């Protein structure tokens, strides 16, 4: 019996000890659960504005997520990101360069972005101007661009300038920004933007593109006052003399591949982000310009990229040297005539009225049974002729008649068929009726009209052919 009593005693004490242990575990669990609840509570309070209990971060939580991938790149970091947020940047031109540049700059979180452009979106823009969509044809480019960019990054403040940059508005617009991107398409705007950036001490990132080639230059960086040789060169230091006006080719005339101008715009965005993140918007005490360079891109060349070293500021530069005559007053007052400086192209007008025929008159020649006894020469470049041409016309590209390849006097060109009577008329045609006039003059100079042959052009070219004769003509 004693044995049974002692076993029961042992079991009772074991149960008591286990129950005590169980109680302790329950207490511990309760403490852990209470702490978890408290932590959860604190976290949810942090997300509510005004209830922050700890952590005073300089960016919004969403911004850490949005920019995290670029902030962890050593050259950017949190300081670079804060500089981007504090910066204001002006994009002049919302076209083939400005669109890709703006997309990356807005994406990167530059705090304020201004866009200058007075144009509206056209169908021929869409293959390269990636912020504009088909539905936006007819809309102002600046508004179309900002609509896209605001949906990409609502943190950015966008400022619309629905006008072209001019000597009159340049100071007022540019002075509010830290850095400028030249995404325009004409020599006059290139010189104007460079000049105003020199005068207002703004670094300038300039790019251009045509066909399969592009150029990129960072100018006026560091943006020291004019006369300080330590500042970066300006556009006039690199190209003091504008190209002759008649040699300037636009993307509309020369053509452009979307990715080529896209590459150049993206490179502008990269240079802007590098400059801002590194804190180089203003010159530092005693700072000297590094070696300025121009990056050349040629899609069909090997290697496709080349970097050439540029001069420092030109000693006699009109804009950035001490001797130069550029002042804010002379620029704003319009006494500096950029149009005159770069030259003006007026429509070619070298033929007499009797040397030109209307498109509908030529149609009568074509259908009047005399069709065999004339020659229609289309002087557009072959790539354009291949797209569309008038039946029976022969293609003699304008470029093949230039310079040393010009026609020699008294030499019958090979493209005139042997069977063509020497007095049969020759008509010239081109896209708009400029080049055709020049060729008419040349053909007369070499004496092709000496047997009483009529030589003339179709007035206003194939543009009028579409209007007057063939509405199905594919205008490109």
């Amino acid at each position, binding site marked *: 019996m004693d044995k049974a009593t002692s076993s029961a005693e042992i079991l009772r004490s074991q149960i008591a000890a286990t129950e005590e242990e169980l109680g302790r575990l329950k207490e511990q669990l309760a403490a852990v659960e209470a702490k978890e609840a408290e932590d959860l509570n604190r976290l949810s309070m942090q997300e509510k504005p005004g209830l922050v209990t700890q952590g005073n971060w300089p960016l919004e939580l969403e911004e850490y997520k949005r920019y995290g991938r670029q902030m962890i790149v050593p050259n950017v970091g949190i300081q670079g990101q804060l500089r981007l947020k504090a910066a204001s940047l002006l994009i002049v*031109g919302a*076209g*083939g*360069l400005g669109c890709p540049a703006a997309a990356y700059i807005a994406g990167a979180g530059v705090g304020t972005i201004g866009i200058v452009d007075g144009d509206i979106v056209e169908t021929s823009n869409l293959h390269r101007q990636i912020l504009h969509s088909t539905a936006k044809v007819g809309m102002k480019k600046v508004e179309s661009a900002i609509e896209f960019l605001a949906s990409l990054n609502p943190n950015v403040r966008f400022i619309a300038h629905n006008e072209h940059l001019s000597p009159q508005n340049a100071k007022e617009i540019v002075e509010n920004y830290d850095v400028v991107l030249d*995404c*325009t*398409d*004409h*020599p006059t*705007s*290139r010189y104007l933007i460079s000049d105003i950036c020199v005068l207002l001490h703004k670094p300038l990132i300039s*790019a*251009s*593109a*045509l*066909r399969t*080639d*592009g*150029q990129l230059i960072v100018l006026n960086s560091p943006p020291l006052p004019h006369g300080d040789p330590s500042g970066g060169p300006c556009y006039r230091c*690199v*190209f003091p*003399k*504008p*190209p*002759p006006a008649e*040699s*300037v*080719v*636009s*993307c509309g005339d*020369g053509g*452009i591949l979307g990715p080529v*101008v896209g590459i*150049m*715009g993206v490179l502008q965005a990269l240079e802007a982000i590098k400059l801002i993140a590194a804190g180089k918007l203003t010159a530092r005490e005693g700072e000297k310009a590094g070696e300025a360079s*121009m990056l*050349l891109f*040629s899609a*069909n*060349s*090997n*290697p496709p990229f*080349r*970097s*050439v*070293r*540029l*001069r420092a500021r030109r000693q006699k530069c009109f804009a950035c040297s001490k001797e130069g005559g550029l002042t804010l007053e002379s620029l704003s007052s319009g006494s500096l005539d950029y149009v005159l400086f770069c030259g003006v192209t007026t429509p070619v007008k070298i033929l007499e009225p009797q040397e030109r025929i209307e498109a509908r008159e030529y149609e009568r020649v074509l259908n009047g049974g005399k069709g065999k006894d004339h020659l229609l020469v289309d002087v557009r470049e072959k790539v354009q002729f291949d797209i569309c041409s008038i039946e029976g016309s022969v293609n003699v590209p304008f*470029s093949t008649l*230039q*310079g*040393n390849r010009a026609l020699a006097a008294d030499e019958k060109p090979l493209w005139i068929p042997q069977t063509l009577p020497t007095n049969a008329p020759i008509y010239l045609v081109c896209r708009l009726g400029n080049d055709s006039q020049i060729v008419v003059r040349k053909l007369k100079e070499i004496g092709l009209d000496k047997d009483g042959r009529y030589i003339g052009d179709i007035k206003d070219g194939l543009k009028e052919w579409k209007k007057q004769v063939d509405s199905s003509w594919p205008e490109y």
Partner: protein
Amino acid sequence: MSTSAKAPPGHFKILYFGPAENHTSITSENLPAPLSVAKLFSTLEKKYGGIKTNLLESCLVTVNLEYVDIPEDENDEGMVIQEGDEVAIIPPVSSG
């Protein structure tokens, strides 16, 4: 264009960028070296009539990827382009 190929002995290579090609119809060629840069424009003018005023005078010219000043007087001294050098004619492109 095969711009990476070296010029043959006694020549330098000249590259024509962008709109320069419209005047020359080629993107690069080899010309006899040595040649002073002061005589570069007149040498090209003989080959491509009209190229001096229509193109070269507004261009940036580099030798071995470094800008060079073209003296106004072609009898001026100035640097001499040597055999094997690479010269580039870079016209301003303003479109975009």
